[in-house]
């Protein structure tokens, strides 16, 4: 899906002057030439939203991605304080879902069918839970694809490979970890890195919690110093809280590379830490379940925060 903004009519048809305004704001934000960068980012978001009813879903996805990238670069480089890229991603998701209304329309179809088959074959509570967890993972990947405007199973999370015979799965590109699925405690469930067009800008990082079926959100304790620094000594962190993935990252970032999965855990943990420091980290919690009537996986996001 690639759209050239210059190919759009400027005075008639879908978008029109709104599109010209969008391009102007995008350019000003990307080049950091606006006097009021914060206001420019807000205007860009408002313009993106205003175009929503006038453009096709595919074009809106393309525009939302451009806006997201420009806003994320601006945030990561310290030009704006607000996390407007998150809002652009929500716009993107609504249009992407219109194009891909369920997992069957994505590269997740086979994995979803696997989860359904596991559920049908399950005779123990452990097997049932495993199939629900797989459904949660499928739903998470679907939701994150929507938010990013791309089927991640065809891009950054394409055909993840198991690490050293463990249940951890990873994808890397150019020696850099892009996607990690973790399989034990002291981890986030999912890690995804989105590189931005500006090589000087820090990459966007999304960490996730995939909930399957009716499983509840638990509470955890983080490292002692971490809890103290956040004024949480004596309390716990909910899995719905932004501090949850950050507390897990505190453990992951210190994994020993001598461990078979330590290198990937450490890289993901450090990427989360760095992205949070740069203000371009997001946490996405998704619940998925197997829809037995339609023999597929359905889900929805429950937390999406910066």
């Amino acid at each position, binding site marked *: 899906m690639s759209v050239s903004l210059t190919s759009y009519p400027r005075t008639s048809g879908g978008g029109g002057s709104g599109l010209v305004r969008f391009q102007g704001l995008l350019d000003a934000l990307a080049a950091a030439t606006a006097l009021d960068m914060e206001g420019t980012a807000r205007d860009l978001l408002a313009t993106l939203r205003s175009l929503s009813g006038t453009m096709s879903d595919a074009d809106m996805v393309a525009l939302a991605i451009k806006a997201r990238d420009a806003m994320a670069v601006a945030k990561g480089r310290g030009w704006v304080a607000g996390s407007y890229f998150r809002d652009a991603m929500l716009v993107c998701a609504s249009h992407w879902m219109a194009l891909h209304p369920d997992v069957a329309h994505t590269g997740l179809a086979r994995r979803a069918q696997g989860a359904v088959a596991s559920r049908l074959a399950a005779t123990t509570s452990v097997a049932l839970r495993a199939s629900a967890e797989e459904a949660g993972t499928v739903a998470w990947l679907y939701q994150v694809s929507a938010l990013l405007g791309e089927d991640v199973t065809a891009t950054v999370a394409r055909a993840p490979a198991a690490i050293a015979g463990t249940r951890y799965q990873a994808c890397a590109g150019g020696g850099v970890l892009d996607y990690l699925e973790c399989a034990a405690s002291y981890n986030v469930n999912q890690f995804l890195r989105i590189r931005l067009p500006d090589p000087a800008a820090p990459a966007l990082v999304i960490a996730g919690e995939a909930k399957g079926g009716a499983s509840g959100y638990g509470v955890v304790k983080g490292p*002692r110093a*971490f809890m103290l620094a956040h004024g949480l000594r004596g309390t716990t962190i909910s899995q719905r809280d*932004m501090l949850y993935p950050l507390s897990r990252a505190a453990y992951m970032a210190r994994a020993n590379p001598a461990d078979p999965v330590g290198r990937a855990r450490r890289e993901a943990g450090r990427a989360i830490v760095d992205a949070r420091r740069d203000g371009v980290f997001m946490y996405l919690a998704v619940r998925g379940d197997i829809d037995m009537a339609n023999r597929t996986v359905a889900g929805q996001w429950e937390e999406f925060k910066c």
Partner: protein
Amino acid sequence: MLDIQAYPLQEQHLAAAADFLRQSMAGQQRLFEQLEAAWQEMQATRDASRFLYVRYSVMETTAAAYATRDRVVFDAAVDSMLAHALPVDADWYRPTAAQLGVDLAVALSCRQEGRAHALGRQILQHTPDDGAPVPEDWQARVLARLFDLDYDGAADALARMGQAIDAARLPRHEAALLAAWREAAACVVTRTDVPLADALRRMSQLRTVYVEKMLVRWSKGQSTDLSPLDFWDCQAGALAVLARSLGLAQALVPAELPFADWQWTEGTRAWA
């Protein structure tokens, strides 16, 4: 150059410690800019969450720099942390006494008197029963009272700290450390010299045992609750500095107290 030989770790743990600490120093070049950006963001959005997170990273870097005797990074990190204070006057965020207590311990350890005075005042503005005080809230009050030369107040806070330790059902290591700190603080309150040195040495031994145990786990690839902060006990350092200012420090031997080496932190760059 890492110089963790100053620590009484067994030979087989030194390389692992160096490795572990080196990780925490990675990326520190950008860290201070990120703290400034997070500070600006907090002012604009009235949301302290990212700021607190980056500040925690700075604190860890400070500790890693202390442990590796990297004076340049240590000075820069202390400066950065104390220059970007916790938001105490905001109506949208109020730090706990325990959070302020960490800053007070850093300021005292590094002889930042002006900053320590301001923090002490802020800590004492917390009413003792704000929320559900944890042992570290009382620890902060003990330091603030001692710095204010209010020995009765410090003794009272120490008693409440003991109750809080009992009530908190902490992991054994944490309870032992806090109990040893409390004992050392009690010696400062009563101006008794030799038991103070013993208590500080005990804290150093507890830290050594814990760090070595965690390094073994870390070397095996197991999850650990080890942080650079385990290599710098600024709370003990603050006590040592206060004791020194009261003329109680004759018995303190820095070589035995690497986790709270009050002499090494003495040359910290002055903060305006």
